[in-house]
């Protein structure tokens, strides 16, 4: 077969360019660390990487939603703990009022203590998360959610229920204040009311212990019923606190799951589009050697010509 000089040079140049392109492509991959830089490099891998990135973004959003819920739940857990201590204090105060040696003067002092406890409890029930949201705001509330009405009774001026964050799990960013503070099961048979408000319990105890000239029997009955109601409410409070504790546990679990999911997505993305360095370096060296050899061969062959040997 004839080889023509022009096309020999052309095809040598074409091949050199091809090799150079291959070398440059590998170099690009090595410097960027990515095997897939555009969809056409590997459409399937690009799709996997893109889905994994979306999953990572979702995991981040879930994590932030969970943090928001956790902050509120932790605050609520603390608030419920504080409330427990206050109720213990109230119980001791009411019990002390039952001391037969106490006269009206001592009882008046104890009633003052009880009033103090009630004010503190109201403060606890109206606590916010520091960002303007009331912990026991339910599904929206006037601010603050618990107020004394005209008759001096504490009422909840919000919507019962709790508010969830965007998550696959039921995570709350506010607790149902009505149920927590005003609707403890009384454990009493009708016609006694089925549910108890802690503020009503305290108000009743305060009122009954403040009656001047009350008989010892009246006082003893007030103390007995007051302590009984406080205990019933305390049990409800403990259950509420336990459920926030349980919610915090669930959040820890959920956080682990989110982190696992995110890690899996990261691994998936990296596996889909990142470069296998060992493979790439070996490829690069291969191409380098090939290019080098091609250059050498070209420079040697193009020197050969019959004209070099025709002289004079």
């Amino acid at each position, binding site marked *: 077969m004839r080889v023509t000089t*022009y096309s020999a040079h052309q095809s040598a140049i074409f091949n050199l360019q091809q090799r150079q392109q291959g070398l440059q492509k590998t170099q690009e991959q090595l410097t960027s660390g990515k095997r897939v830089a555009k*969809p*056409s490099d590997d459409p399937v891998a690009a799709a996997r990487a893109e*889905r994994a*990135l979306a999953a990572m973004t*979702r995991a981040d959003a879930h994590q*932030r939603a969970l943090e928001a819920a956790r902050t509120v739940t932790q605050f609520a857990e603390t608030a419920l703990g504080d409330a427990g201590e206050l109720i213990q204090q109230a119980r001791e105060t009411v019990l002390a009022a039952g001391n037969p040696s106490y006269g009206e003067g001592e009882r008046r002092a104890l009633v003052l203590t009880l009033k103090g406890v009630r004010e503190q409890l109201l403060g606890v029930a109206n606590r916010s998360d520091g960002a*303007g949201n009331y912990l026991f705001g339910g599904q929206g509330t006037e601010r603050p959610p618990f107020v004394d009405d005209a008759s001096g009774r504490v009422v909840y001026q919000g*919507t019962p*229920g709790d508010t969830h964050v965007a998550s696959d799990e039921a995570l709350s960013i506010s607790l149902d204040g009505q149920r927590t503070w005003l609707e403890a099961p009384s454990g009493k048979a009708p016609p006694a009311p089925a549910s108890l408000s802690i503020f009503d319990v305290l108000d009743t105890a305060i009122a009954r212990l403040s009656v001047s000239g009350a008989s010892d029997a009246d006082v003893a009955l007030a103390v007995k019923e007051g302590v009984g109601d406080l205990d019933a409410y305390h049990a409800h409070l403990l259950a509420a606190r336990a459920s926030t504790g349980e919610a915090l546990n669930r959040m820890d679990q959920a956080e682990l799951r989110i982190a696992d999911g995110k890690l899996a997505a990261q691994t998936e993305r990296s596996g889909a589009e990142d470069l296998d360095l060992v493979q790439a370096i070996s490829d690069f060296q291969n191409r380098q050697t090939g290019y080098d050899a091609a250059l050498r061969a070209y420079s040697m062959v193009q020197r050969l010509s019959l004209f070099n040997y025709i002289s004079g």
Partner: protein
Amino acid sequence: MTTALLSIGVRAMTASYASLQTTSHNIANAGVEGYSRQETLLATSKGLFTGAGFFGRGVDVVEVKRAQDSFLTREAASAKALSAMDQARAGYLVQMQSVFRTGEQGLGHAISQFFAAMSDLASRPADTASRQVVLARAQDLVTRFREGGTQLARLQTAVTEEVSASVQTINGLAASIAKINKDIVAASAFGQEPNDLLDERDRLISRLSEHVQVSTIPAGDGTVNVFIGGGQRLVLGANAEQLKRVPDMFDASRSAVAVSEGASLRQLDAGALGGGRLAGLMQFQSEDIVAAQVMLGQLARALTDTVNAQQTLGLNLQPPAGTVASRPLFGLEHGASGSIHAAGTNQSASSEYRLEMRVVDASQLRATEYELRSDPAAPGSWQLLRVPADGSPAVPIVPGVTLGIDGLEIDFDDATTGVPIPATDRFLLAPVTRAAIGLQRLLSDPLDLAAASPFVASAPAANTGSVSVDSLSMVLPPADPAANVVISFTGPDPGDPSRMLYSWTRGAASGSGTWTPGKPIPAPPDPDINGFSLMLSGVPVAGDTVEVMPTAFPEFNNGNALALNALGGRNLVGLQELAGGGVAGGATFNDAFVAALVDIGVRTQGAEAAAAISGARAAQAEQARADKAGVNLDEEAARLIQFQQSYQAAAKVLQIAQSVFADLLKISGS
């Protein structure tokens, strides 16, 4: 006697000199592309008869011939045409890919971020900062869509410019070929082939092939006739036709190619061009840009329409909170919400027919355009075809009857004046093609975001079962925004005890339905209650109730933000309506983007592979042509020596003839 010797010597010298000249011409043109090696053909002169037999009279120069194989030349030109076509398309596709960029800079990530911002808004509905973030992410999203749309429009402009340039080049080359045809006829009059002109014509045809696939048919007089696009003549003898870039029949921003036939223009079928850059450009324009535009538009439209629908169902915080109607978050500029193009060749005026198109369910929109034309089998009855063709059958459309198709409603009346428009008229309906480029964010005040749901649901403490409210989201505008709805469970479904029957009251209105655990209230086919969809968990017992009441404190409610966030995880793009009602299939916004990205990625990959293969084939065909026709310098060097030697030998013959003659003179002179 000596004259014969002298004559032989002179002829031999002339022949050697001619050969040397051809060889030098070869050497001189070794680097010229498309040059065919030439060779001087010599022949022995007829002998002179004498009594003693024939005496040779030396050598004659017969002709200068070029080494060329017209089959290989044609093959090389046609392979070059295919390679140029593939290369043009692949080059543009590589550019188009950046519209579907992956990773953090891509549109897909902007979609994820938008819905993640909705999740943050749900966590802090009263926080202005989280509302600002939602607006910023919405703007990002709009920017990415618009960038994508703009980039596609820019590619379309580039294609148009290149088509114009290509058409000009083709016209220039065609004129040159016609002229050289004429020159060749003139030069051939002397009975010898004008080799260098023939080379030049081959070269022009090869260059023409880069732009458009041609077929050549030699005529008897030495001219070559050139045809394009399956039989359209471009050069006939010494006459060349002119091509022209014209606007597409439907869409003036797209290009078509026409040929002037006298005073009129005839549009060429882009599919019949066969090869060359022009064919690649037309294919990219009619298949790839449109595909990218409709996929992007379908996604943009589905996303913004569903988000808008949910946003307008919620309550915003414009004072007084919860009382001002919520406005949509996204909007479309004029012309972006779907356009109808009448073909430039239509004979009817727009007053003679009525054609309207409305989007009724953006989730069912398909990534396609539609052509409305008369049924070729039954002229006068009309049908709708998806373009680019996807193999689906044409859908008949009856004038005067609204057609529901792919989330669209189309009204067509072909005879508003009483006279039907001609059956040759055609229309193009493009519902989503320009949606991405015309997208805009309408809201700029964070208070306008409707994060709150108009209703809240709660299960009273008096319930004895464990039923609790999971979520409540709005799906329809409420029948009575101020009503309290009470849903009472009445007992298990006698037909299926795992389900519960319920009744409801909404003011004076009432109704009933069946609740299946894990399904919303109300679930089809139960009638709507007040626009909401309520998810419950736990187990209700007979007598338990759930109340749904108007939201009293919209600034703290996140119900609609949750519903907006949930849109991101639902299949809301390309849903297909089932024959028995309901919808199926579809993809999430993210998945729809990924599908588009894969589509373009695979196209590009395929086009690049095709370009590499046809490029290698073109190189091979050119090599085969060049190997036959090209110059090898070593060969020419050897021939130089060969002809130099024969020249020297012939000179020696002359010298000897001269000395013989001198000897003869000496004898006669003495």
